[in-house]
């Protein structure tokens, strides 16, 4: 019953620029969007000049730009047989007191903008939202519940989220350093990402071939100490994709650069026998873009598969996890045919999905 969901078009909007290839070229050459921000008094990846307009919220305008760019690249009509999944954690949190804070309304406005006539859903699963959106889409297509699915993910940098992570003492004092011995926390970031999937292959070069999710059942704000929850999600993804660990060529991990998260991931990948695979976190380039992260990073994986190359895991210098990982230290060309994208978040949720070159 499991079927591939073909990637027909993608786009991402980050402070580095608009477009999947544009962003991939920037990160492959080592450019980061993360910098010191005087307003928030920490390092973030944020747009300099992006404001709400009279007719649309700030996040809405980010999402619409990415949707338009992705739709432009899709070679079919989105107005028919297409579902929309919006992945976000905090949406328009700055509009908390107004009705614009209701996330299904944001999804409805995005659908209208894209000409999608079906009723959209929002997936809000903390930092796994974007990855879960792709899994949900692939399964809707597998089950014949949808022919095409637009997965859109977006979150923005706000005082609300910054102060929340600051209260956890989780913000890094500089640009984050995933998996490094001296890592000291996260950078927040903002982005919109869009992936259009279809049951029909068309001219696509990649497909989502399986996914899995799990819950740690351990703690609502702390990662598992053993990694068994993420391991379960990885096992489910491999099983659904009909693959074994040794068929995976690289890992695009969550790598938030907190001490606990990266340590947990190293243990999970050891349990899944993936610890010998090249691994990177892209948080050093884009920051942690919350609900968009899994989608943005999956799209960068697709660019890796298309260009047969791997970007470096920015910020990494010295081994810093109890299970040694093969962290990609320098951007390089490499033959890659499939990868696994993983995400973990508050609430103990984990998600993993497998993307394959076809």
């Amino acid at each position, binding site marked *: 019953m499991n079927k591939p969901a073909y990637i027909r078009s993608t786009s991402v909007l980050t402070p580095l620029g608009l477009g999947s290839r544009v962003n991939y070229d920037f990160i492959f050459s080592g450019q980061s969007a993360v910098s010191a921000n005087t307003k928030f008094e920490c390092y973030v990846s944020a747009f300099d000049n992006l404001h709400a307009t009279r007719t649309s919220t700030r996040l809405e305008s980010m999402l619409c730009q990415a949707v338009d760019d992705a739709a432009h690249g899709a070679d079919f009509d989105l107005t028919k047989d297409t579902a929309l999944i919006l992945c976000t954690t905090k949406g328009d949190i700055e509009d908390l007191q107004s009705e614009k804070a209701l996330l299904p309304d944001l999804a409805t406005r995005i659908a209208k903008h894209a000409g999608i006539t079906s009723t959209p859903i929002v997936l809000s699963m903390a930092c796994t939202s974007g990855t*879960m959106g792709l899994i*949900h889409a692939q399964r809707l297509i597998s089950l014949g519940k949808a022919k095409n699915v637009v997965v859109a993910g977006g979150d923005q940098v706000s005082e609300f989220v910054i102060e929340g992570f600051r*209260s956890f003492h989780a913000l890094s004092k500089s640009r984050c350093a995933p998996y490094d011995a001296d890592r000291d926390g996260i950078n927040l970031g903002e982005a919109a990402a869009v992936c259009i999937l279809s049951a029909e292959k068309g001219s696509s070069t990649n497909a989502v071939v399986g996914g899995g999710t799990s*819950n740690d*059942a351990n703690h*609502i704000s702390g990662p598992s100490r053993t990694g068994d929850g993420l391991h379960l999600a990885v096992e489910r993804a491999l099983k659904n994709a009909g693959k074994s660990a040794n068929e995976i060529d690289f890992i695009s991990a969550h790598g938030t650069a907190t001490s606990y998260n990266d340590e947990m991931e190293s243990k999970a990948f050891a349990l899944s026998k993936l610890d010998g695979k090249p691994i990177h976190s892209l948080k050093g380039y884009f920051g942690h873009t919350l609900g968009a992260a899994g989608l943005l990073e999956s799209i960068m994986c697709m660019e890796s598969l298309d260009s047969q190359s791997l970007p470096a895991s920015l910020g990494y210098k010295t081994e810093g996890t109890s299970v040694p990982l093969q962290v990609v230290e320098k951007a390089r060309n490499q033959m890659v045919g499939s990868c696994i994208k993983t995400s973990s978040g508050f609430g103990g949720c984990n998600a993993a999905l497998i993307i394959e070159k076809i």
Partner: protein
Amino acid sequence: MITIQSYCHIWPEGLAKNNLRLVDFSSHSAESSGEVRLNAVETSSNTKPSSHERLVQFYRALNINYPKFHKMDNLSKLGFLGAEVLFDGSGQTDSTSVVLSNLSSSLESDRIFQESLNDIPSPAQFVYTLPNIVVGEICIRHKIKGENSFLLTSQFDSQALIDAILQSLIFGGVDQCLSGWIECINDDFYGFLFLAKSGEGELELTKSVLDTLYMRK
């Protein structure tokens, strides 16, 4: 075939499992209905209790002993109570997925946290500004490691829920799914939760069955 094994409704006036009212705050007489197992705990004043007070009263009326309950926000308390009633100490939760939904996400907790920004923000409050935390709370309580998701929809969307339940049963390798709608906003709440299983049963999981049950209190 997927069937609904059991369901429950929670709203300020009462809590019912299947058609049986387990807690009833609308009636002051135990004799008024032969089905009433636990009657209202009298409140000290005539003012309408807050959502928080009501949810704590349900917790007491159900004789639950789980101190973490008191740290949860109202949305988590609501989902927790529903799961408590449906699992009812059966312990059969090792092969379970969780798919919940609502309209307003964690908006009530978002507003509380936003107000705290003027003071010293608390991480214990911040963590509840995500709708999926209730899923985590339920998973911790019942040791559920299965698939989970939280959907936000403009209104109760039985088709979106059925699609998500089906996914988790087929691709998540589990026997049953805890699902439903939990909404907590403007000091009001409504929960409709149910357990869906693969296999034969009296109540088939269909859009019309879900829509009918959702409307019933």
